[in-house]
């Protein structure tokens, strides 16, 4: 029996491999294929499948409707497809929108978001109510708020503004979702709002605000002006942000960057070894406070790295990676572009509407490019909207971390990073020097 099972398993493996390698005949084989599909027919087919799924299984329907909403938000469906979808789904999703006195439909949230994205007027009021409903999951509120903002809804912008600026009324989670929702908005009101609320944002949200502001030329200029006025510290921008601004197609913006930061290096700086030597000498003389260092980590590094189970996973989890000894740690933190793993090579994407994004590629297909950007957010750009896609010579991990910290803060950060366990753990020990 076990021999037979082994035989079957090995054949399964071979067949799976052949399947994955795409060796099954696709065209001209034994199946009849009729050439490229008609776009409207495809949309109608998808809509009809959706109608079947909605009747059959709530969880699957939720997945499908959210997937569709994401595609519309990412501009992967053209106007004609959206209209066709709207015509097909209206009858089924319309009754699922909330109505006074009626029990809330289990798919109401998804129906509301899709209705907004398909420009169905009946979805707008329920969408505003959903976005401001603190009892609903943050992910749902963010999705619907982003949908409203995408349609240029003024009340949605007012809500996002209130979430960002009224600290007594809205909590950090609301500010986080508002900031995320504003990312895709092209409204000229976004940059002034984010700059105005920057100082009040929680530490981990400030880098997300900078990420948002450095995505478009107009908001980048507004950010540089705010830095010039002293409203935002110049150290809020790391070397990668500056490199991203230099990737802009806007010559005025590039000129402003050069005026402020001088010539911006687009590849590894060979002088980083000197910085490592300096910091090593300081670490040999002085010791920082690891608990304070943990807070600095949460503010700066946790945007991309996880340690001891906390933080985002854009870059490697550094609980067990890159900290084998102090020497390796110094090199990874202070000279991150010296060695970059292939899967951590950053890409710069410039979109047709001038947006610039830097992140790690999650998907690069004929349909879309998806990047994981600092902060952990997944940004998806329809392939047709990608004007330029290039590999950055720099690691996504910025050079010049020491410039963003005071001397004490740097010592504190290394005091935290050189412990093998969290500072709260009494068994925590220092990692070896080499």
């Amino acid at each position, binding site marked *: 029996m076990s021999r*037979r099972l082994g035989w*079957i398993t090995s*054949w*399964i493996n071979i*067949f*799976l491999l052949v*399947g*994955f390698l795409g060796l*099954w*005949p*696709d065209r001209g*084989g*034994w*199946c*009849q*294929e*009729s*050439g*490229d*599909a*008609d*776009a*409207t*027919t*495809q*949309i109608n*087919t*998808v809509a*009809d*499948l*959706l109608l*079947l*799924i909605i*009747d*059959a*299984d709530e969880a*699957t329907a939720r*997945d*499908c409707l959210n*997937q*569709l909403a994401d*595609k519309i938000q990412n501009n*992967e*469906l053209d106007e*004609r497809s959206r209209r066709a979808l709207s015509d097909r789904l209206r009858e089924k999703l319309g009754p699922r929108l909330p109505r006074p006195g009626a029990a809330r439909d289990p798919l109401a949230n998804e129906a509301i978001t899709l209705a907004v994205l398909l420009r169905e007027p009946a979805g707008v009021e329920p969408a505003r109510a959903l976005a401001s409903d603190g009892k609903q999951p943050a992910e749902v509120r963010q999705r619907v708020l982003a949908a409203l903002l995408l349609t240029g809804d003024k009340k949605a912008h007012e809500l996002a503004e209130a979430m960002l600026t009224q600290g007594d009324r809205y909590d950090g989670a609301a500010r986080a979702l508002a900031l995320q929702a504003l990312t895709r908005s092209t409204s000229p009101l976004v940059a002034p709002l984010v700059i105005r609320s920057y100082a009040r944002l929680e530490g981990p949200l400030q880098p997300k605000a900078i990420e948002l502001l450095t995505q478009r030329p107009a908001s980048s200029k507004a950010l540089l002006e705010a830095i010039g006025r002293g409203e935002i510290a110049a150290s809020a921008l790391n070397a990668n942000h500056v490199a991203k601004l230099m990737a802009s197609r806007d010559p005025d913006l590039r000129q402003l960057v050069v005026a402020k930061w001088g010539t911006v290096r687009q590849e590894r700086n060979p002088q980083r070894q000197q910085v490592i030597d300096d910091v090593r000498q300081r670490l040999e003389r002085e010791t920082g406070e690891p608990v304070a260092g943990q807070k600095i980590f949460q503010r700066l590094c946790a945007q991309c790295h996880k340690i001891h189970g906390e933080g985002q996973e854009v870059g490697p989890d550094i609980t067990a990676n890159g900290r084998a000894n102090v020497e390796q740690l110094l090199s990874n933190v202070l000279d991150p572009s010296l060695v970059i793993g292939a899967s951590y090579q950053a890409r710069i994407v410039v979109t047709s509407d001038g947006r610039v994004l830097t992140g790690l590629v999650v998907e690069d*297909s*004929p*349909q879309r490019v998806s990047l994981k950007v600092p902060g952990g957010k997944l940004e998806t750009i329809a392939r047709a909207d990608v004007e330029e896609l290039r590999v950055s010579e720099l690691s996504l991990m910025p050079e010049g971390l020491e410039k963003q910290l005071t001397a004490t803060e740097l010592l504190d950060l290394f005091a935290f990073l050189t412990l093998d366990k969290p500072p709260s753990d009494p068994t925590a020990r220092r990692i070896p020097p080499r």
Partner: protein
Amino acid sequence: QLLTHTDASFRAWGVRAAGNFHEVEPALVSKIAELAQDPAADVKLQVAIAARKVKGLEPLPLLVKVLAQAGDDPIIPQVVWQNLHPLLETNSDGFLAIVKQYDLKQTPNLTKILPRATERILAAKKKESSK
């Protein structure tokens, strides 16, 4: 003889051999199609693999049938998907017509792949609509 053998391993062998031949007698084609409902997972798996290889088999309905009957088998849905998704690019209408024949509430394996199927259909290379 292999296809009608009482031992499921032999039936699976038979289907696999037919797949390797690509072209078999019409009677065998019908028999392979019937084996989509075989009680043994190994046999159904081989039918899923042969679905696009044996001339005369209709891969779309056969793959959906195998999937619908896969029960808790962890491998069949993966093999079905590998063979099914290229067909969705050009015959999404046919897929829809077949799915309509099933009660999705009773066929969770089929329901589970529908999000991926809709994604695949939307990702298909499009020609300009004539409408």
